[in-house]
């Protein structure tokens, strides 16, 4: 078991000193109510917000002051954050357990970059796969991708799970307003769950003649995905018959393992490649993002990449005090390690971002949900908090009760676009919709204010019974986008990615592996044998045996 300490005895002298200094700051600030911080400084916002590209981060509702920030910056220096950022962007082996670099950032380096290539050929490999993807996108959009009978493909189903599902799903939902108008509107669907729930529903709606499947899997061995793909193949074969043309017309594969794709039957022309050095949860920028490009077009996709690249450059070059991802990271470290808060809610005030909480749950918890440091020792500090979330206005009718009056301390990220419905396509209903957006914004700002200040937000409320009281004092950050566009969304996602990396550096862990998800897959294979009656149940524990007995008895 980990022995948690407020000052870890691993790490350098400087790091230990930084933690010690931070603990003093935490002692000082912990008793202060957020309302007092605002009372003490009328201009608090001015000192505690940062902008980068299309984003504004307001962290004035966090329990920090400039002295605490100074110590957090000292911590970053002592952990050699600057050096680690350079190691990341120099393609050094930052993923130490899997002995490779993490180069998702290279996926968004523009074609005409003047940046030096850390590994020869990487940028041109990336561009050549993007070009191949662009050709496919064009063929599908122009109605020239044909099914086996020669009919036009009208529906595309992305089969993938985890990073091969959440990223494309989240972004293509978020950017639906930027959908390109192809001659006929293209249906884009997602199937991920291994129980086949989504497949079952999709196969009822779709026509085999018009349906194209994208099988997306970095390893091309993911059981969930291959089972879904096999179901799709059988469905096609039932109506169209077995033949070579079927694979050619109805399947695209995206993977880092061409030979595995070929083995499964993906036609060579229909294979898009990613690389070992892209983590699944960092892969929406690669050809895994094909569903995104199908929704918003290649130009939109390149805008998404451009936004992310802007954030990478900002992350590499900005000093800590104006570095948006680093500030997000340090605030998180402060809350987790100094203030002892272990729950974090993601609250977008824009229905288009409905999948963002799920996406960030994976990004943060799969990356930093670790308890062993880079030296293989148990960490002595808490790492990633528990993340969850929901579209804010809907969550107001669900778990905000706990945020306002429960016993747990929770930090929140409020996320909203400043502008909405100003684009030409909304002209007809613009007025009503703009007023709905204003209502959402008002709620976003009001909730974070009430969470921070408590009933003090309304000075003249007078004495309230206990059950009507709002104690406030729940810290939150607010991330505003100028508008939700491919560019700003790219910048925002990259900001979170870079935040995760910066936190991992401070915690001394590797954010790019995910060994915690491996063992379960293995055990499931054994259990499957027992459920199917091919293996004896004797080796299993009594709970599992009891559950299997119930299943089999039905």
């Amino acid at each position: 078991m980990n022995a948690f300490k407020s000052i870890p005895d691993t790490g350098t002298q400087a790091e230990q000193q930084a933690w010690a200094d931070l603990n003093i700051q935490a002692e000082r600030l912990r008793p202060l109510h957020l309302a007092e911080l605002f009372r003490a400084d009328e201009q608090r916002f001015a000192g505690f917000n940062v902008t980068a590209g299309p984003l504004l981060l307001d962290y004035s509702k966090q329990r920090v002051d400039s002295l605490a920030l100074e110590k957090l910056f000292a911590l970053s220096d002592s952990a050699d954050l600057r050096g680690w950022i350079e190691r990341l962007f120099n393609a050094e082996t930052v993923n130490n357990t899997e002995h490779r670099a993490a180069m998702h950032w290279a996926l968004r380096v523009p074609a005409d970059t003047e940046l030096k290539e850390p590994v020869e050929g990487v940028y041109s490999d990336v561009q050549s796969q993007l070009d191949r993807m662009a050709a496919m996108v064009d063929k599908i959009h122009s109605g020239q991708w044909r099914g086996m009978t020669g009919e036009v493909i009208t529906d595309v189903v992305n089969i993938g799970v985890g990073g091969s599902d959440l990223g494309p799903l989240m972004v293509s939902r978020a950017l639906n307003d930027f959908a390109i108008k192809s001659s006929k509107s293209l249906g884009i669907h997602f199937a991920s769950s291994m129980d086949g729930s989504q497949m079952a529903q999709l196969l009822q709606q779709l026509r085999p003649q018009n349906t194209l499947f994208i099988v997306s899997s970095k390893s091309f061995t993911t059981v969930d995905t291959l089972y879904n793909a096999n179901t799709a193949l059988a469905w096609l074969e039932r109506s169209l018959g077995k033949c070579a043309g079927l694979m050619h017309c109805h399947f695209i594969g995206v993977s880092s393992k061409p030979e595995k794709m070929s083995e499964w039957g993906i036609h060579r022309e229909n294979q898009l490649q990613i690389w070992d050095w892209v983590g699944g949860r960092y892969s929406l920028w690669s050809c895994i993002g094909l569903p995104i490009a199908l929704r918003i077009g290649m130009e939109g996709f390149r805008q998404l990449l451009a936004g992310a690249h802007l954030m990478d450059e900002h992350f590499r070059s900005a000093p800590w005090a104006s570095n948006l991802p680093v500030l997000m990271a340090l605030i998180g470290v402060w809350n987790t390690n100094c203030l002892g808060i272990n729950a974090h809610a993601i609250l977008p005030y824009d229905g288009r971002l409905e999948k963002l909480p799920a996406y960030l749950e994976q990004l943060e918890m799969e990356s930093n949900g670790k308890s062993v440091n880079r030296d293989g020792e148990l960490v002595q500090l808490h790492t990633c908090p528990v993340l969850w979330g929901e579209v804010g206005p809907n969550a107001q009718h669900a778990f905000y009760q706990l945020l306002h009056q429960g016993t747990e301390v929770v930090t929140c990220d409020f996320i909203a676009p400043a502008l909405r419905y100003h684009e030409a396509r909304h002209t007809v209903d613009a007025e009503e919709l703009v007023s709905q957006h204003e209502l959402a914004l008002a709620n976003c700002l009001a909730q974070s204010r009430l969470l921070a200040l408590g009933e003090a937000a309304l000075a003249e409320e007078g004495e309230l019974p206990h059950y009507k009281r709002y104690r406030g004092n729940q810290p939150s950050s607010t991330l505003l986008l100028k508008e939700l566009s491919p560019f700003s969304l790219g910048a925002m996602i990259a900001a979170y990615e870079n935040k995760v990396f910066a936190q991992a550096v401070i915690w001394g862990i590797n954010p790019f592996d995910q060994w915690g998800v491996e063992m379960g897959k293995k055990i499931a294979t054994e259990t499957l044998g027992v459920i199917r009656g091919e293996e004896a149940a004797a080796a299993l524990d009594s709970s599992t045996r009891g559950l299997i007995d119930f299943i089999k008895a039905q």
Partner: protein
Amino acid sequence: MHIDLYGDTLSALVTAGSLASTGHNVVLRMPQGRVRQQIIANKAAYSEPGLRRLISSGHTSGRLVYGDFDGLPGADSRAVFLALDTDESALAEKIVTRLSQVRERSWLVVNQSPFAVGFTEHLEKLLRTDGGESRRSVVALPDFLQEGTALDGMHKPPQIILGCNDGYAELLVKEIFRPFNRDRDHFLVMSPREAEFTKLAITGMLVTRISFMNDMANLADSLGIDIESVRQGVAADPRIGPAYLYPGVGFGGPGFSSNVINLVDTLDASGVGSSLLNQVIEINERQKEYLFRRLWQHYHTDLKGRTIAIWGAAFKPETGRIDNAPIIRILEALWAQGAKVRVHDPEALPALLERYGHHSGLHYASHPYAAADGTDALMVLTEWKMYWNPDLDRLRKGMKQPVILDGRNMYDPAYVREHGFTYYGVGR
């Protein structure tokens, strides 16, 4: 009578030429462009049988003169015709507005253009602005010209539908058309809106018949039935009759498609919508790729490096136009799959050249057999007379693969197969 006519559509030329031929004095006011240049150079602007001669003899007689599109009719002009294209409604507004600004002058405007339903009334409102006491009307006279037989249609109309709310205007229009209205009264007079909608409804009915038969042909395919026998049986029923029952590779033409689309838009805009007509259009668009699908399956979903011959680019015989013709979708489908095309058409190659220029995937052949030589399949898209009886032996010798895809069911499948061809028809 002195008449001014604005426009350069087929309908404009046919009307101008025909009216001049019966003694009217016509000023034809064409906008700058290809048609105007051709006409002034005494060349054919449309490959419509008889049209060039009609225009040129009208011009020689002095009764048909060419005026300025931006000019106003002279003092003795009694009627102004507008025969513009669907997308030129703004021009119509401009012309009518200019007419309306001539003080104290009476106007009769005859709108033959296929604009949206209600547009004639809209023009009338414009014309009457500042009209004072003068007599001003706009009437709708939708054209029912069929390309290829347009002159016959003008001279012996089965009916003339006139949308008109003004008795005096009605008399004047009937006077203009007296020579074409002799054996009986062909005029059906209704409101302008009704006339405009009638035109759309007729087109809608015709294309519905065609799409219905194409739908039947697709079913016949899957049931192993020859649609040709079925078509003859259906046509024999007097309640149905034989017209517009031929399955094929889809209808095209500037009028046909734009009119149906116009109708669908009209219905959509009114909030009624027509799921039937939407289907009709969709079936038609799918049908245009019908032969491509047969070919795609024939070559097991791989057409890369194949060369395909096409006979017929025009949307129908006796015209050189390719607007909305099946060949457009076929070419784009074949090119997208990496195939090359050699095409022959007796009239439409200039139109094709104008659209695609010198394209590496397109060879313009001057002779049908030259188009077919060395190809992996022959598609027949337009039923030009010259394609009805090809020398099949000559054809087979030249082709790399003896495959015929007959988009108009012109050939006898058994006879073609006897000559060693693989034959695909539509629904047979």
